[in-house]
């Protein structure tokens, strides 16, 4: 099947971003821009990878600097405009344990004012290998299954930009392959920023962001 949709050029840019916690600087004056392809966000533990992705996703405010986000459709340069246009998943992301996988996706779709057709949502869960578990409560999921659900959450609104923080954590071989497929499809449409401690997670990155003073060890 050939898609007739044209890729939408989307740009996410950090402009002189700085972030401090309790006066301790995490990173400062960080600038980069990404329009299409995979951006590897690298750095040691505590270098600020998770914080950087949360700032780009609009979940945290930077201490200074700003995030610029543009699509051809002209998404507003504001947290509310970025809300659905940037998919995000990270280790801190928890979904509702008392709800099933499909109930979780349906809730977020409907609460965001979008349609929540169960068959379409079950297809999304099937795509991340949770087809059999779609009607089971999330509190019964294993660590890897929860990670797969996070990936489904990140792509729930078919965002033109995708931010994935340690997406391979807790996944088996099949799960890693699913993430690779998601990243491969998303990097054709727009920017994918992938943060990881493991260099093997970066498959032919188009560019790198090495957080100051860190970078890969020799």
């Amino acid at each position, binding site marked *: 099947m050939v898609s007739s949709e044209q890729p939408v050029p989307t740009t996410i840019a950090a402009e002189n971003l700085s972030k401090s916690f309790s006066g301790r600087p995490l990173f400062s004056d960080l600038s980069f821009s990404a329009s299409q392809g995979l951006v590897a966000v690298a750095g040691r533990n505590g270098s600020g990878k998770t914080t950087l992705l949360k700032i780009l996703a609009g979940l945290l405010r930077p201490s200074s600097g700003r995030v610029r986000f543009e699509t051809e459709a002209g998404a507003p340069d504001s947290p509310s405009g970025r809300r659905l246009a940037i998919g995000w998943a990270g280790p801190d992301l928890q979904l509702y344990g008392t709800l099933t996988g499909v109930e979780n996706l349906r*809730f977020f779709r*409907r609460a965001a004012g979008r349609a929540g057709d169960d068959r379409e949502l079950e297809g999304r869960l099937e795509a991340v290998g949770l087809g059999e578990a779609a009607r089971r409560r999330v509190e019964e999921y294993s660590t890897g299954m929860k990670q797969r659900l996070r990936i489904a959450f990140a792509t729930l609104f078919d965002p033109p930009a995708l931010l994935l923080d340690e997406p391979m954590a807790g996944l088996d071989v099949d799960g890693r392959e699913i993430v690779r497929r998601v990243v491969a499809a998303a990097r054709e449409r727009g920017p994918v920023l992938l943060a990881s401690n493991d260099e093997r997670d970066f498959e032919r990155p188009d560019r790198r962001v090495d957080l100051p003073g860190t970078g890969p060890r020799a």
Partner: protein
Amino acid sequence: MSALSGAWAVCVKDATEELRRKVAIVSVFFFAATAVTLVSFAMVGALALPPADRPPLQAALLWIILFFAAATGLPRAFVAEEESGTGLALRKTIPAVVVLAGKTLFNFLLFLAMAAVTIPGFLILLDWKAGSAGAVAATLLAGGFGLAVVSTFLSALVARAGQRHVLFVLIAFPLLLPLLQAAIAATIEAAAGAFPSAPLKVLVAYDGAAACGAYMLAGVAWED
């Protein structure tokens, strides 16, 4: 329209979670039932008071019970999201004002359910006379709505603070004093069979001001 359907989705989600987990419902209803029963034991002597002297005491006791029962369950609205780690997913996808509206609606319905348990207990065990049922209902609706709005907003405000439960009560008490005062006055008049127009106007004005304030400050309270 999408904001309204979004708020409804949040309310349905909260209700589904609550019916499966039963944390707030059990604590609220257990507190209300226990408080009404204990108050009825303590009020045996007071029931010897002339009927005309009882309504102020009964009205005050009714709202004390409703306030503290609400204080055990309503603050969970946002606190539970932070404690379970689901707050990030909410903030990522849904505007703060939509989340606040949905959770306020759920808390309002929870308050009405709690009142539906408390009022019959008062009528039976404390020999309370609801002179004008319509006026009592109007007072409960107006008082309950204000209580739900303020409690839900404060829940968002303190959700990520340390000592959040203590903080909630410390802030809620002075903020809710005018509401409780007007609700008690309205209940006294309603029990006497009159329509409490003056205190009801105060309650409606309080509700309007609280709802406007919560709407304007939702983002400040809930987002980073």
